[in-house]
């Protein structure tokens, strides 16, 4: 009896977790599903095809991937030296550095976006890819630094000293030893920086100013008054990258999952 309850409870938990996917699929691939039919009767890929082939959808996806890729690479480049120092060294002002890095992860995107909107309008970055990428770095950078610095905190520098004593140059040590040792965290950090940028709505809206249209912006406007099938199809496209990433990184998430949390 108690065992049965456990299974039932688990089943419900897992059901809630995959329910959105089932729901989107039901709406996106059905047609003429009218109230009060409980389940779709006619299935079609028509709506989905129409949405995917829509030039606006396509360009928004390409733009979104491009921006997210740039954000991810830039965040890693900026985060690596900082995370190394924060993970391995004790130095004067370390607390202050942590605080400065922590702040952008809590200042609401609303405030950041509004302020940057005015600034970027002045210096000509509003409505450009560069502007949006810069804005997205604000939420991704703290996260990347947190993830990588905890990897460095677990990293034993003696591996580097070994390589040094064996004759490796600083660059060789970095490429052949350090990067290899933190690769798992590096991959997780890169993927989630990508996802945070990919799903960013407000910052893209405020900085992109209607020039830069990404999938979340399309989805948001569709959800504010579009038809359910389109909304569901866009949602499926929107969650595809996160779902794939989650499926591939599930194991290592036990370490990192919660650092990503809210940005997203």
């Amino acid at each position, binding site marked *: 009896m108690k065992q049965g309850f456990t299974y039932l409870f688990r089943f419900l938990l897992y059901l809630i977790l995959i329910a959105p996917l089932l729901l989107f699929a039901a709406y996106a691939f059905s047609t003429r599903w009218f109230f009060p039919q409980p389940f779709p009767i006619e299935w079609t890929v028509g709506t989905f095809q129409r949405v995917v082939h829509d030039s606006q959808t396509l360009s928004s996806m390409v733009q979104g991937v491009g921006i997210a890729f740039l954000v991810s690479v830039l965040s890693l480049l900026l985060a690596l030296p900082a995370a190394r120092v924060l993970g391995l060294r004790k130095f004067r002002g370390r607390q202050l550095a942590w605080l400065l890095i922590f702040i952008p992860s809590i200042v609401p995107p609303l405030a950041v976006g509004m302020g940057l909107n005015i600034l970027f309008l002045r210096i000509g970055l509003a409505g450009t890819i560069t502007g949006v990428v810069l804005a997205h770095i604000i939420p991704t950078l703290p996260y990347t630094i947190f993830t990588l610095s905890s990897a460095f905190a677990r990293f034993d520098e003696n591996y580097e000293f070994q390589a*040094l004593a*064996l004759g490796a140059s600083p660059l060789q040590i970095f490429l052949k030893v350090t990067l290899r040792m933190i690769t798992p965290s590096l991959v997780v950090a890169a993927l989630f920086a990508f996802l945070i940028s990919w799903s960013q709505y407000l910052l893209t809206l405020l900085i992109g100013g209607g020039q830069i249209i990404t999938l979340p912006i399309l989805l948001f406007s569709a959800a504010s008054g579009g038809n359910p099938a389109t909304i569901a199809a866009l949602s499926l496209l929107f969650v595809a990258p996160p779902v794939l990433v989650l499926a591939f990184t599930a194991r290592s998430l036990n370490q990192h999952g919660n650092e990503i949390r809210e940005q997203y």
Partner: protein
Amino acid sequence: MTTVNIISLNKTYPNQSLPVLKDFSLSLNDGEMVALLGPSGMGKSTLLKLITGIERPDSGDIQFDSSSILNVDPNKRGAVLMFQKSYLFPFLNVEDNIGFGLKVQGASSETIHTEVKRMLNLIGLPGIEKRKPGQLSGGEGQRVALARALVTNPKLLLLDEPLSSLDTTVRMNLQEAIRNIQRELGVTTIFVTHDLGEAMAMSDRMALLLNGEIVALDKPENLFHRPRSLAAARFMGVSTFLSGSQLPVKKDVCSSSEKMFAIRPEHIRIQKEACKDSTPGVVSDCVFRGEYIEYQVNINEMIVRARMPMPAPMFTHGEQVYVKFAEEYLFEVEN
């Protein structure tokens, strides 16, 4: 291969008042293994960092074959390290780990292959090229780490307590293996340890390090039998020190009352009957250790520790005994 001269090294870390190394000098002959023995935190690891170039000394010089290496980049010094932990790169297999040093120096893959094979034979683990570090036992890991360090023909091998995390049997095997390989290759070696037995078993000479200074430096057998100073004697396990006036045997020196004499615990006998030059005392402690038995005897409020090989007479706590110091083993120490 290489003679090493370490000359008057000084090192004080910022934010610390006491120096870690104070006027530290040490010379090693070509192919010699010198053990540095001392309690932890006595500057041994700092010395290794200075030699490898991870840290820089405040003053002094380090020379390989009479030329200073202080301005040589750390990765060009040819001083390799082996730690308590193997630090084998977990993402590389045994072959790539051993070949790492050759590879970063640009050796061809054939050279690497033959050299790795040669090293694996030398350490007695042929055929494990494709294994990952995670699949090796502690002892195997240390052997591979040794091979990795030696494959580049280093000028100087630095061993930083390489055996401290292993069990006794593995440890004994490895002591022997390291010693043999070191002799065979003739590589000059500094061996840092806090284990007296290990230092004596392995080294050509031993240096006792206290508070950043060498208090004694000699062959193990000399240091063991005739340590010159009180500190060195203590280090070598001597615990019985007698001033001249306390000596039961009147040594031929008249002014002996100001001098300090010492005797190893093995050279003190405890017996039931009085005999010539014996001193009466009371047994205050008795520990049976299997191969020998340890006694503490109270002679006029002075505690004497004796160590007698089995079979030995057994005395109980509080028993009246006579202590006899073997005269020929008494030696003088500087206070």
